[in-house]
């Protein structure tokens, strides 16, 4: 692998799809300095600063009462959907605009890990609050993240935590917390689930303000035995126990490997660091990581955001019709941010490679090619016709085309927008 290929591989995986200019800069800086800069950007992110999260009005449901009419409820429902769409569109725009691509992609990783869907949570403010929590704690040690998440209103609503009381514990949150978010299956017993549910009792969500609140009279203050430890554990203490288990560090590092490196090459031992930034460094530095080049199927959001960045398209600058097409395309591809299909998160790998997803990518590729910034298109057409497939590879940060794809692209050299669309649906671009 050449130096350029090595930094391109790193940037493709660590961020949402680098531009050719970013790869140029990384190649000049070298692989080691590029990794350092990704993990510790060291300067304010101007792109993020220019895309502040929307300031949402109060949850329209807060104003409803038992006496509210059907019309009022429908109106509140519609308003809620509008707010959720606003947050989804903002997030997509932020993913494209951010300079600190590692942090943006990591927030998306955590969103898929603590997979919480607006389908049940419904409140845009509460979903936005969870994203802020994932962003605040996402790079740091895992303990504070778990402690914040057991008190996160969106997660509490999603897994029925507000219904978990001393009188009759509800196990949904405790079980998924251990199975999917921290320890992984097999590292706890059914008794731990029951005791864990008791530790989490008492936390409820105020739907008016969208904040979590502790109600002592609903909490079970009794002695519990969890994972061999006994005490009067509450939510925070339980979160601390989970975060301190060695199985948790291994499990979470494995999940990071799964998303950033894939499944073709098994995760090497000893990836887990004291915080997520350290674990990511271990993943990207592992010799096995280099072997994963060309094997990881891009998730639909990764595919789309990468293309938007490389083609110089800002979603927020598009007309409404095209913004709708973007979200509609993600829907057809089965990956809409804020709406994971399951508490187990999104699928991976070949599950994204079906005829129905190819059709959706075809439509989106045509739309993206049509919206490509003139300056970007000019770079492609600056090359002589025979050199355009290579110019396209540079633009889309693909290491190179195989004979099959080159044969498909070559006849399109005279039609640059079609060439772009064909590049976006190629196996080399779809699988990074």
């Amino acid at each position: 692998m050449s130096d350029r290929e090595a930094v391109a591989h790193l940037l493709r995986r660590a961020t949402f799809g680098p531009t050719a200019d970013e790869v140029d800069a990384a190649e000049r800086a070298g692989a080691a300095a590029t990794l350092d800069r990704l993990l510790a950007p060291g300067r304010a992110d101007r792109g993020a600063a220019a895309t502040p999260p929307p300031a949402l009005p109060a949850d329209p449901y807060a104003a409803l009462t038992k006496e509210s009419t059907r019309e009022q409820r429908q109106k509140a429902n519609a308003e809620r959907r509008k707010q959720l769409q606003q947050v989804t569109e903002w997030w997509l725009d932020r993913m494209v605009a951010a300079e600190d691509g590692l942090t943006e992609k990591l927030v998306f990783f955590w969103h898929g890990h603590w997979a919480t869907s607006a389908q049940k949570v419904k409140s845009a403010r509460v979903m936005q609050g969870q994203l802020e929590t994932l962003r605040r704690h996402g790079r740091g040690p895992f303990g504070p993240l778990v402690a914040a998440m057991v008190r996160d209103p969106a997660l509490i609503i999603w897994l029925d935590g507000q219904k978990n009381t001393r009188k009759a514990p509800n196990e949904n949150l405790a079980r998924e917390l251990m199975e999917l978010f921290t320890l992984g299956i097999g590292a706890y017993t059914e008794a731990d689930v029951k005791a864990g549910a008791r530790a989490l009792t008492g936390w409820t969500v105020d739907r008016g303000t969208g904040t979590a609140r502790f109600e002592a009279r609903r909490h079970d203050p009794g002695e519990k035995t969890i994972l061999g430890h006994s005490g009067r554990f509450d939510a925070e203490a339980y979160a601390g126990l989970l975060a301190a288990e060695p199985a948790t560090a291994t499990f979470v590092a494995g999940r990071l490997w799964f998303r950033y490196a894939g499944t073709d090459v098994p995760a090497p031992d000893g990836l887990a660091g004291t915080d997520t930034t350290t674990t990511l460094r271990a993943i990207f530095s592992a010799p096995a990581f280099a072997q994963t080049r060309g094997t990881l199927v891009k998730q639909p959001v990764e595919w789309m955001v990468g293309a938007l960045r490389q083609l110089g398209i800002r979603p927020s600058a598009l007309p409404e019709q095209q913004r709708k097409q973007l979200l509609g395309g993600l829907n057809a591809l089965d990956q809409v941010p804020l709406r994971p299909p399951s508490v187990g998160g999104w699928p991976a790998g070949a599950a994204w490679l079906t005829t129905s997803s190819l059709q959706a990518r075809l439509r989106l590729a045509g739309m993206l090619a049509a919206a490509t910034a003139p300056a970007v298109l000019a770079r492609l057409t600056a090359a002589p016709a025979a050199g355009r497939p290579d110019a396209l590879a540079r633009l889309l940060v693909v290491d190179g085309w195989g004979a099959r794809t080159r044969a498909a692209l070559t006849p399109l050299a005279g039609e640059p927008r079609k060439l772009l669309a064909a590049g976006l649906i190629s196996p080399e671009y779809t699988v990074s």
Partner: protein
Amino acid sequence: MDTLTRRRFLLTSGVVGAGALAAGAGAYSLRDLLDTAGDRDPQSHTLVLVTLYGGNDGLNTVIPYGDPAYRAARPELAYPDNEVRRLDDDFGLNPALEGLHQRWSQGGLAIVRGVGYPKPDRSHFRSMDIWHTAQPDRPGTTGWLGRWLDGAGGDPRLAVSFEPALPPLLAGARSAGAAVPVADRKAAKGLSAETLKAFEAAEPGESAARARAAACFADLRSVDDMIRQVRDSAEQDTADPDGEQAPATATGGARTPLDAQLDLVAQCVEAGVSTRVFSVSLGGFDTHADEKQLQAVLLGQLDRALTGFADRMGRTDAGRKVVVAVYSEFGRRVRANASDGTDHGTASDVLLLGAGVHGGWHGEAPSLTDLDDGDLKYTTDFRDVYATLLERVLDTDPGPVLADWRGRVDKLF
């Protein structure tokens, strides 16, 4: 990543075993199925397996209303006697199961009670893996119908799912069933057929994922526009994804409505395709809270889809050779939680209808008071049901598929 975790990711992430991937899972379109019309023995039967994802509450599906322990355990959640659709003096169906109740009266619905497996696992994903693989001790990477397919010659068109990703139960060691997408067929503008065809070619030395991406171009070319009609009729149901009602935490299941999936099955059966097994699914049964209304909505969808399908099947010779089996990965706790819901439980009912099925009760109802840590004790091993289906519907010796499992459900057929 340890083996167990890795395997789990493969299964629950919709990525089946490497064998299945190599066999080109999903590389079939409806046209390919319809091309097999007439290839089958007209006397052979067809199995339609309906998976309910999330853990359907069996005690509020087939309701033991005559047992005082039922109401005592879940006072808010229990259905009053006068709402239950009566089956006999002790049991009745959920009020939403109107069509199935009618079938029961005509002797066309079989209910196997207390179906489960030893040492029940209360994780959705793990328990679903167990049901998919039929290997409770150590779920492997092959599904029970995938292993049947291996023995039946391995033609993927014999075992079909209408979900975007292949369900693990159809993944064999050497072969895999076909995942036929219910795809949106709006024509892709812009790129010519020549360009798309050029992408079909295999590239030596390419990764499995890139080879799969290229194979999609070949699949796409052969998808028939019959799919479009089904999709169009299905779209009405998805217009408003979020009503006011809070749904259950999602744990998987197809996005295409069950009736649309069964509609495709019906079209295939009527065309006389070679497919012997269809897998369809409905998700959303993880009712930890406010269960009653939520479950009733889902059971209503199930009831309409199943009875509509069964009625349609009753009208043709091919349709009258179809057997439908409905199951979920576990039932729910006997006692309600304080959220008017139930937590993950164990044994539950399997419902069967169709060709040759003897209606009525099968197996013993588990006791509501003699419990295993708050959960029902299973009375029928789920492999008894699988073995019976393999023998009586698929005309296959269950031995090689189910590790020489001996149990059967007597008098089910």
